[in-house]
């Protein structure tokens, strides 16, 4: 009943519906007071590409939570695992001497190879984790949090065991080290790739969730598992699938971030988990659209503030999170 009244309220008051968007966009034009247009545009492109990378990791987190009601704190570990998987593929290509001479098209192909390997590795690890550990703790939030903290610990230690404890330099395909200039704005190719990948994955997720039978089953499972089970669907396999998909997204995000920073280290997951958590909290747990918008907000504000007041960058994200939580305790797109 609650949702009914809410729906009708927004329908009858269109201004309120758009007010948030107008204020939001206005806020993002605010930095223009302090900087010239070129800098602003450069920072905006960089911010959106950072946002897309964060979206990759946040979307997996929110997907797993949305369907399975599991807050997977091992997500950061899947992210780091994916980074190492992608790093290994790039390293092999580098040993063959293909990385330094790659054209843009070849670079894209190598990136696809690395992302594919990371996605498969992350998805596989996700299936294992779900089947061995997570399925034993459905329905108990506290145990889920604790058990996923443990899993994350195990994965990170395994990373250290396999690849060593030190930072490693990630070989970046030559084609991505170039940039092009539009309106005086210096844009690296890899940023464009990141933005493109983020939007593509957002579109695919939206299509699957909204248009396909699988999406209907998934959304129905979020709302009422009993009906879905009694209709004849094996929901435990659907859970495994979603968990694997979420983990694969984290792993893909990990490889992208590894190339972005040109480095991997075993603890890298935790640094980005904080971004992902902020994004998911801002966007609302369980909403893919929410984490898309949240990721753009976090990416942009982080870049603007990092340019103006470097030390405040992370603090500003916390402030945004706190303000949004005070106005909307369930996040921008959160549901009951």
């Amino acid at each position: 009943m609650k949702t009914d009244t809410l729906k009708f309220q927004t329908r009858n008051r269109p201004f309120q519906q758009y007010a948030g968007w107008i204020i939001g966009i206005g806020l993002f034009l605010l930095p223009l007071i302090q900087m010239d247009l070129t800098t602003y545009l450069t920072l905006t492109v960089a911010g959106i590409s950072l946002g897309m990378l964060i979206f990759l990791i946040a979307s997996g987190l929110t997907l797993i939570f949305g369907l399975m009601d599991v807050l997977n704190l091992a997500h950061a570990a899947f992210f780091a695992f994916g980074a190492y998987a992608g790093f290994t593929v790039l390293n092999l290509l580098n040993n063959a001497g293909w990385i330094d001479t790659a054209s843009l098209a070849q670079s894209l192909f190598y990136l696809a190879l690395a992302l594919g390997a990371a996605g498969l590795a992350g998805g596989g690890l996700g299936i294992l984790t779900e089947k061995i550990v997570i399925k034993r703790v459905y329905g108990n939030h506290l145990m889920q949090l604790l058990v996923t903290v443990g899993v994350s610990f195990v994965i990170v230690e395994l990373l250290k065991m396999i690849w060593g404890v030190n930072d490693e330099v990630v070989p970046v395909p030559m084609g991505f080290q170039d940039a092009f200039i539009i309106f005086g704005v210096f844009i690296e190719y890899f940023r464009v790739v990141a933005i493109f990948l983020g939007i593509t994955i957002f579109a695919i997720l939206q299509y699957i969730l909204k248009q396909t039978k699988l999406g209907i089953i998934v959304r129905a499972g979020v709302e009422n598992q009993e009906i879905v089970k009694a209709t004849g669907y094996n929901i435990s396999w659907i859970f495994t699938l979603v968990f694997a998909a979420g983990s694969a997204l984290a792993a893909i995000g990990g490889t992208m971030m590894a190339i972005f920073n040109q480095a991997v280290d075993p603890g890298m997951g935790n640094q980005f988990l904080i971004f992902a958590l902020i994004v998911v909290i801002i966007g609302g747990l369980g909403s893919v659209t929410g984490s898309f918008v949240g990721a753009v907000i976090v990416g942009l504000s982080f870049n603007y503030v990092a340019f103006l007041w470097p030390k405040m960058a992370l603090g500003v994200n916390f402030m945004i999170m706190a303000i949004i939580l005070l106005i909307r305790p369930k996040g921008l797109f959160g549901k009951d």
Partner: protein
Amino acid sequence: MDIKELTSLETSGKKTIQELTIAGIIFVFFIIPWIIPSFRVMDVLAKIMIFTIAVASFDLLLGYTGILSFAHGMFFGIGAYSIALILYHSDTPSGYHIFLAAGASIAISVVISLMISFFSLRVKAIFFAMLTLALAEFAHILGVQWSDLTGGADGISFTLPGIFNFGQTLGTLFNTQINGRLMVYYFILVIAVFLFTGMLRFIHSPLGRVLKAIRENEQRTIALGYKTFRYQTCSIVFSACIASLSGILFAMWLCYVNPDSVFHTAIMVNILLMVLIGGMGTLYGSLIGAGFFIVTENWLPGLLKSIAGLASDSVILANMADRWQLYFGILFVLVVIFFPKGVIGTFRVILDRRHQLHSS
């Protein structure tokens, strides 16, 4: 609320045994520096005491109130940093600086924990966990980046005032040197006993019982007319203060702090593991959890290395021995899945079952 659980350790016959056990444990902690004059042993015992307090304070929150806050380790760090900064910046450190640090860390902890509990009222439990996790990560990053204040990743080392000064020797008694470190050890013992007793009083007070009722069934407790938010706030603030005091003890014992040693989420994970081993909602379990964890943390790596040394040419084996924390992680997962009640909790269940068998 399960009345049997509340009174299971309070029946008169058991009570004397319990009191004797506690007295015995305190006596062991008191006497060991004289029997085994080894720094390593003393170090392990001191850390056990410190973490027992930190773990128990976390258990107040998790086990007795059902709130999972990942920001708890942060309060530990706040305590540690407040004493480090005050002693580092004071020209002539003296005893009152320790009280000043305690006061300052409690003040900061109260303010931050009030803010945290204000948010916890507004969001779901799972949201709260995420929020506090993000906050804890933020504190760690702040500790590293705000280097003007915190000394960055290098951390701060400082000297303790008066009789606690490590360089000072007051003489020898029964072949044991009475020096500053020994004085700090006994200071930790006294404070730890004091704080632990305080927490025991807290959970057995009417307030503690309401908290247990909230954990069992929040809706019902609200329906009974309790303002549950106030009670939860009390427990969040109280446990944060205790955690920051244990952080002070930790810093005093090491005379050094850095972000990785007090703010890192690994500290939080360790505390979680200790709570789980001992058992949630069993204050005494914190001693078992902390004891087990710190003893194994100190001797397991050496043990593994010596095992790996038997086959010295195997790189994989050496690698596996190096990563002793891996086994802790696996243990952690296994404990959560198979023994969610921990040592003390499982023990109580077995006792209860036997009790039921005898009575029927």
